[in-house]
C-alpha cells in the first residue's frame, strides 16, 4: 500500500485524525482514511464481547440522533456507538419533534444548534437533507441516510464486514442486487467498493436501475444469473413493496423469481460466496430464508454487529476533528 498521507494515522497510534468536519457521503473520504477508520473499528470490535463495553473517549460530548424516518437498527446502532464511547446521546424522532408541528428542516437545525451538540446524526427522506443541515449547524454532521442519495456508514460497515471475513476487498467481485435506483446503500457501496479496488456488478430490473449506472464504475446486469457469476459477495438490497404499486415491476412473485436470491441462484456465484443485506429483509421477495438464515453464507447478523464498531470509529474521528481544529 502507498504511504499514508499525514492526515491519517494507523490504529496502533490511537484515534483516527480526520480532515473533515462531516461525514455526508463516501466521496468525502479517501482510501487511506477508510483504511484508518476500519483499522480503528478493529480495535473496538472486541469490546462487544467484554462485560463492560464502555470507553470514555467522548466523555462529556453530546450526540443527537435526529431521525426523520423510522429506523430500528441504524438509530440504535448509533445510540450504542455513542454511549460506548462515553457520549451523552439524545434521540429525537420525528413523532416527538416539532417537525411534526410544521417546523422546517432549517428551523430544526437552528434549534438543535442552539443546544450546542458535538455530533449530529441525521436521517431524512429527502436527498441532500444532511448536507443542508451541515451548512446550518456548527457541529459535526453524520449522514445516516438521506433519501436516495447516500448512507456512508452502512457502506463502511459493509466494507468492514467483508474485510474481516475475506481479508481484503481489492480484487473481489461484489454483486449488488435489487432496487439500485432507490437505494442510498447501493450508491454509497458502489463508491466505496470502487475506491477499495473491488469489481462491482449491479443487478436489477431495468426499471430499478438508475440512468447511467454503467458509468458508476460498475457493470450492469438485468439477468441476475449472469451478474452473479464470479461474485465473492452478494449484497441484496431491500425492495420496497410500494414500488410495485408504482409500476416498477409487476409482482413480488415475479420479482422473487428473477431477482430474489435463493440457493439455486447463489450457486452461480463463486463457491463459498457470502451474502449480505442491509436490512430489514423482505423474505420471499428479495431473499429466501434458506439463504438469509444459513450461517455458513449469511453475513447479515455480522453486519449489524460490525455496525456499532464502525460507527464508534466514525464518531470518534469526527469528534476529534472538531477538537483539534483541522476542519476542512
Amino acid at each position: 500500500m502507498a504511504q499514508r498521507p499525514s492526515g491519517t494515522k494507523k490504529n496502533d497510534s490511537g484515534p483516527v485524525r480526520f480532515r473533515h468536519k462531516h461525514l455526508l457521503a463516501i466521496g468525502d473520504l479517501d482510501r487511506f482514511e477508510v483504511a484508518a477508520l476500519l483499522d480503528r473499528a478493529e480495535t473496538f470490535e472486541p469490546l462487544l464481547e467484554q462485560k463492560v463495553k464502555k470507553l470514555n473517549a467522548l466523555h462529556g460530548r453530546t450526540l443527537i440522533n435526529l431521525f426523520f424516518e423510522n429506523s430500528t437498527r441504524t438509530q440504535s446502532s448509533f445510540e450504542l456507538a455513542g454511549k460506548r464511547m462515553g457520549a451523552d446521546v439524545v434521540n429525537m424522532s420525528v413523532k416527538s419533534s416539532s417537525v411534526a408541528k410544521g417546523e422546517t428542516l432549517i428551523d430544526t437545525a437552528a434549534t438543535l444548534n442552539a443546544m450546542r451538540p458535538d455530533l449530529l446524526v441525521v436521517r431524512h427522506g429527502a436527498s441532500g437533507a444532511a448536507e443542508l443541515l451541515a451548512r446550518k449547524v456548527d457541529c459535526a454532521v453524520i449522514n445516516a441516510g438521506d433519501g436516495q442519495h447516500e448512507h456512508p456508514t452502512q457502506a463502511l460497515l459493509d466494507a468492514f464486514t467483508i474485510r474481516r471475513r475475506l481479508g481484503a476487498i481489492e480484487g473481489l467481485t461484489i454483486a449488488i442486487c435489487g432496487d439500485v435506483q432507490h437505494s442510498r446503500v447501493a450508491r454509497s457501496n458502489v463508491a466505496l467498493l470502487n475506491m477499495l479496488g473491488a469489481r462491482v456488478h449491479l443487478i436489477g430490473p431495468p426499471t430499478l436501475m438508475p440512468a447511467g449506472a454503467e458509468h458508476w464504475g460498475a457493470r450492469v446486469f438485468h439477468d441476475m444469473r449472469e451478474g452473479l457469476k464470479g461474485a465473492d459477495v452478494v449484497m441484496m438490497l431491500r425492495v420496497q413493496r410500494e414500488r410495485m404499486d408504482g409500476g416498477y415491476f409487476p409482482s413480488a412473485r415475479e420479482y422473487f423469481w428473477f431477482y430474489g436470491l435463493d440457493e439455486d441462484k447463489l450457486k452461480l456465484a463463486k463457491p463459498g460466496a457470502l451474502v449480505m443485506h442491509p436490512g430489514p429483509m423482505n423474505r420471499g421477495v428479495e431473499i429466501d430464508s434458506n439463504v438469509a438464515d444459513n450461517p455458513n453464507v449469511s453475513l447479515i447478523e455480522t453486519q449489524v454487529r460490525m455496525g456499532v464498531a464502525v460507527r464508534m470509529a466514525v464518531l470518534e474521528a469526527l469528534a476529534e476533528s472538531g477538537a483539534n481544529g483541522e476542519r476542512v
Partner: protein
Amino acid sequence: MRPILITNATLVDPAKNKVERGAVLFADKILAIGDIASGPDGAEVVDAEGAHIMPGLIDMRVVIGEPGAEHKETFKSAGRAAAAGGVTTLVMMPNTTPVIDDQSLVDFVLRRAGDRSGGVHILPAAALTKNLDGALMTEIGLLAEAGAVMFSNGDRPIADTRVLLRALKYATAFGALIAHRPEDPYLAEGGVMHHGELAARLGLAGIPSAAEGIMARRDLELAELTGGRLLMDMLSTAEALRPLVRAKARGVKAVASVNVHHLVLNENDVDGYRTFAKLSPPLRSEGDRVALVEAVREGVIDVIVSGHDPRPAEDKRLPFAEAAFGAVGLETLLPGALSLYHKGDVALPALIRAMTMRPAEILNLPQGRLAKGAPADLILVDVGAPFKLDSDKLRSKSNNSPFDEKTLQGIVKRTFVGGRTIFPV
C-alpha cells in the same frame, strides 16, 4: 412420416426477390428445394401444375373468443378458418374473458388450442397491463417463460405515458416484444370512422388521423428512450409512417404492422353506413391507403395482419355508431393481400415476406422460410384463381367481412403443418 414431393410448382421464397419454378420435398421439415428429379421411394408426389408453394402464413393479430366468448369464435373454428386461409401460425390477442394476464391462462391457451386448433399453431400474446386496464404491467417475465410470444393491450391503447415507458423498459430484461396500438384515446373518443368529409356528410363522429400520429410519435420516442422492442400495431395513417421511417433510420427497435383491410379498402367503403367495414383503427383516406401500400413495398411496414376480429351479426346489424368495430380476416388475409400483387403494387416475394419471414423473425420462430431444414408449414396456392367471397360460407363462427360479395383472387389448395395436410381435411 411419408415424405411429400411437390413438383412443377412456383416457389415463393420470402428471402429472395423473385419466384422460381421448381419442386419441394418435405416430411416434417423441408428436405430439399429446387430441381428435384424424384423423391424417395414411397413419397407422395403432387403435381402443382404451376401453382405457388410458399411458407404458411403467420398472422400476428387474431382475436379468438375462447375463453369467454365462444359464440364468436373458438380455437376449433379459428383453426379451421386459418387452415383454409393458408394461415399456419397465428398470434392470439389477450382480450378474452378472462384477460390473458396470468401464467395459468397462457398455459390454458397453449394446451387447449394445441388440442383443438386442428394443427394450426396458436400462440398467445399476453396482456401488457393487468386486466388491460392500462395501469399496472403484467408479469412479463413469467408470462414469457410460460410461452407468451408478445405483449399487447389489445384495442385499448395506454394513455398513461409512464406506464408504457416502464413496461417497455422492464421488458428489455427479457427481450420481450411490446405491441401497442397507437391511438390517443382522448382524441379518438366517441369516433366511429375516419375523421373527414365523408364522416361530416354522414353525420358520424370522426377519429382524426392525428390521434394515431401523435401517439405513434410518443411510442417511438419511448422505444428510443428505453431501448425496448416495439411493434406498432395496425397503423392506418400516413402521419404515423413518417416518424416510423425516421425512427427506423436511427436504429430504434420498432417494427410495424398493417391490417390487410387498410391496404385494400378506404373510408368510402363505409359509405352507406356499412357496419361490416367499421374497423378500429378506421378505414382511412385513399391517400393513407396508398401510403400504407408503399410502406409495405419499401419494408417500412414489416408485417401484414388479418386483424381477425369475429363479431356476430347482432353486434353489426345496428345503427353505424352503435355497431361493433372489427372484421374477420383469417380466410381473406391472403387473397386480400394478393390484390396488391395483381394490381402490380407489391412484388409477390415482398408481399409474402410480410406474412411469413418478417413475423417469424420478429417472433423468433423457425417457421416462415422456404429453406431446407425449416418446419414444413407450407401452403399450395393458386394465386390467380378468382372467386366471389360469400361470407356465409366462411369457416369462422362469425362472418363479418367487408369483402363480402367482392371478387378476390387466390385460392389455397392445400395447407401443411409440419408436413401434415391440415386443409383440405
